């Protein structure tokens, strides 16, 4: 095993973890800030993927299509919050069931509208070479995207009025509303943000994950597990959880096989939950 091989294995593991991080952030934000687990998260990713696919087919350049998809999914999320989530406030399990219903309704709508297979848009044909090994430039670009997402969210939650108000409303909804923060509107914005991130994930990952109706289920399994492992802190918890699970799973799969990587992923999940049943970040002092 050469140094080149190790370098390329680490690089590709990092990009695998980044993909997972991009796909998880929206779910984590909604869980961390609202205490809601959105079981339709995977289908919102799919929503974004189809939105981006359709836009590119209409001749919109890909970067713009990503923006369009993000906006459309965020808007959709806002509608879902107003029509469904808001009415189930405080009924956590019922909220999960409702989002689950939404998940399958969206899946079936996609099957009816697009059929079960659609052509992908193809990955840009650039590679990053290290010695004799190569990895797609787009995969490396995704690492950059993941880091930017986390940095952007950190900025949003600590430096903007919305972020500070959202965190206040989470800390104490009553006091927050007493000083004029409308927590119901915060929830709409937060859910829309989570949905928007899902849509963004679907769009930006389109070259890697072609849009199919069932893509949501595939992406969501690991995202759900990652959020459970991460615990309540949407940024630090999620980054740590995926840093551990994703990178370790990625390295395992590049040394042995994808199946071994997945097995490692699930095994680590179980181990972490034995040690920290409410997620690794459940006891942390830091609150973001």
């Amino acid at each position, binding site marked *: 095993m050469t140094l080149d091989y190790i370098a390329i294995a680490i690089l590709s593991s990092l990009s695998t973890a980044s993909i997972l991080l991009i796909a998880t952030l929206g779910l984590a934000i909604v869980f961390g800030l609202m205490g809601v687990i959105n079981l339709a998260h995977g289908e919102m990713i799919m929503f974004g993927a189809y939105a981006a696919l359709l836009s590119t087919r209409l001749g919109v350049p890909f970067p713009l299509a990503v923006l369009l998809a993000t906006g459309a999914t965020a808007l959709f999320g806002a509608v879902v919050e107003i029509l469904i989530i808001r009415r189930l406030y405080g009924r956590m399990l019922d909220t999960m069931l409702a989002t689950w219903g939404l998940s399958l309704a969206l899946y079936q709508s996609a099957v009816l509208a697009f059929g079960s297979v659609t052509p992908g848009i193809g990955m840009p044909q650039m590679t990053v070479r290290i010695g004799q090994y190569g990895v797609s430039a787009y995969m490396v670009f995704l690492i950059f995207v993941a880091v930017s997402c986390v940095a952007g969210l950190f900025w949003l939650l600590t430096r903007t009025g919305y972020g500070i108000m959202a965190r206040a409303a989470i800390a104490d909804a009553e006091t927050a509303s007493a000083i004029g923060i409308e927590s119901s509107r915060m929830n709409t914005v937060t859910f829309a943000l989570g949905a928007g991130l899902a849509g963004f994930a679907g769009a930006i990952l389109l070259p890697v994950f072609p849009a199919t109706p069932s893509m949501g289920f595939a992406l969501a399994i690991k995202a759900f597990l990652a959020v459970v492992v991460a615990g309540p802190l949407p940024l630090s918890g999620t980054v740590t959880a995926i840093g551990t699970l994703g990178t370790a799973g990625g390295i395992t799969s590049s040394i042995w096989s994808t199946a071994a990587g997945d097995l490692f992923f*699930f095994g680590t999940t179980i181990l972490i939950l034995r040690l920290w049943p409410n997620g690794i970040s459940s006891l942390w002092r830091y609150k973001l």
Partner: protein
Amino acid sequence: MNSSVFTSRRLISPEQMLGSRWWWGPGLAVAALIGAASLFADPYLAYVASSWIIFGLLGLSLDLVWGRSGILSLGQTAFYGIGGYLGGIAAINLSELAGGTLVWSLPVGALAGALFAALVGGLIFYSRIGTLQATVLTYALTLVLWTAAVSFKITIGDAVVGGDNGLSDIPGFVSFTGEVMDPKGTFIVVLTVATVVLMLVQALLRTPFGTILSCIRMNPTKAELLGYDIRYYQLAVFSLSGAIAGLAGALYGSWSNYLSPSIFSPQEALLVPIYVLVGGRGTLIGPFVGAVVVGGLSFWLGGGVIGGQTTLIMGLGLIVLVLFLKRGILGTIMDVIATGQGSIRLNRTGGSVDDHASSLKIDLAQLRGLVGRRGANQPSLRSEGAVKRFGGVTPVKNISQSFSLGRVHCLIGPNGAGKSSFLRCCTGFYRLNSGSVFYGKEEITRWPMFKRARAGIGIKTQAAQVFDEFDVYTNLWIAAYRHHGNAAEAHIHSEQMLRMLGLMAKAGKPASELSHGEQQWLDIGMVLCTAPSVLLLDEPAAGMTGEETRHLSLLVRILAQEVVVVVVEHDMEFIRTLDAEVTVLHQGAVFAQGSIDDLRKDERILDIYLGRREHVRDL
């Protein structure tokens, strides 16, 4: 009080209460038989209707854990599918040996479902994973199995599990004589199995086990504070539900002769809560009603249950059910019947709640026989350097304190001094970050709550915790049952406690309808029913009238002769009547100690209560 009160209609034992609708099961089975008899003209309908009963059985497995035990599992189809596959493999290989097919497939299916559920449940409950997280895990599990089953290939004897191709040639319903049953026979077999399972489940829930499950659903913390190992009960019911789902899967395999990985698909899984919600959650028979209604609608309106736009309709249907139809068909019918009889039991918004508790007549003469441990050991509770931190907040900074038999112990201090947090460290609700807790000579720092409660540490928490939906009698009974482990003795004990508390007239009232003060008394009664040797009372006098507070004071003093009593209170007059050893806590540490009169002279204590001068650090 004369004894005729105990035999009056008001006193319903939990068995009677839960069992009052036992006839639903067999009754509906008979109704289904009669209905089916008229359908027998059409064998195809009898064949399809068999699957509805099987789906109802699958729904029952969810209702048992979700409706009765408060655990939402989205993984019931995982147990169902595994039971189906393994039951099918058993039937393929073993049916030649003897005794038809179901003799092999049903037990194997049930066992496989139970074992797999025990594995998953063991992880969830013994790690104490949160409710939401547990639901997500069960769903992730289903999705993982769905993905894995598509590529999973194995040959066991004559059975070929072919990944995407599934498992085919599962023998159908073959009787002992080796005859293949017709659709009518199949229907009768399926209905019989379902009825037997339903009646067994109903019988189980009429036992104390069922009552304890309901308590865990209503308030898991309180159930554990009474000394019940809730993990054990949750794991047991989860495994049982896995067994039922596995059994249903084995029936389904024999019914369809073929299984494919789509049995693990989310589309299939989605139907399970729909059956439960349509029929009525927590009713047990409801899932069957739901499955027949959903199955019947898709049969007569066209289209199979799975296929075409059905998933779209079901998905939207689930949203609508969750939003609007909370009680389901059977729940709504029961509500109508209950209203007709003029006995809406859980009318929380109605004016039935007494705002004052003057009806209480504490009879302390009854008390002596009710408390006191028979152990020769001198009970005591001691902490050494106890520290509890939450992120940046440290409610318990460093408390070394010992409580032993003799005078009543009181903990006072301004809000936020760490009084309640300290008690929670003693009961095990919080685990210490450092330091240790001793009970008698034993170190109990790492003991879980239920173990401490069983050893004899009882607590009435700051907010009275009662099991809302159960009546007053059952609340006391469930506490006494943990102590005695015997329904008859628990019955005698809880009647004595009712008499002592003067709550006899309200024995049949749901605890949620009691006033604040009465709930406090009930909670104290529940703790006493567990016969603690260390009794922690967190603000017991809150919400009580002057008269009641005097009774409470007397009660505490009598108790203190036999039991270590620690009282957290703000009511200084009440504390004065206790003639107590008072400990002042301040910012998570012991600040002063002495009798209340000594402490009254201490200017520093007034300072910390009023938040002035140098004893108050800036926060």
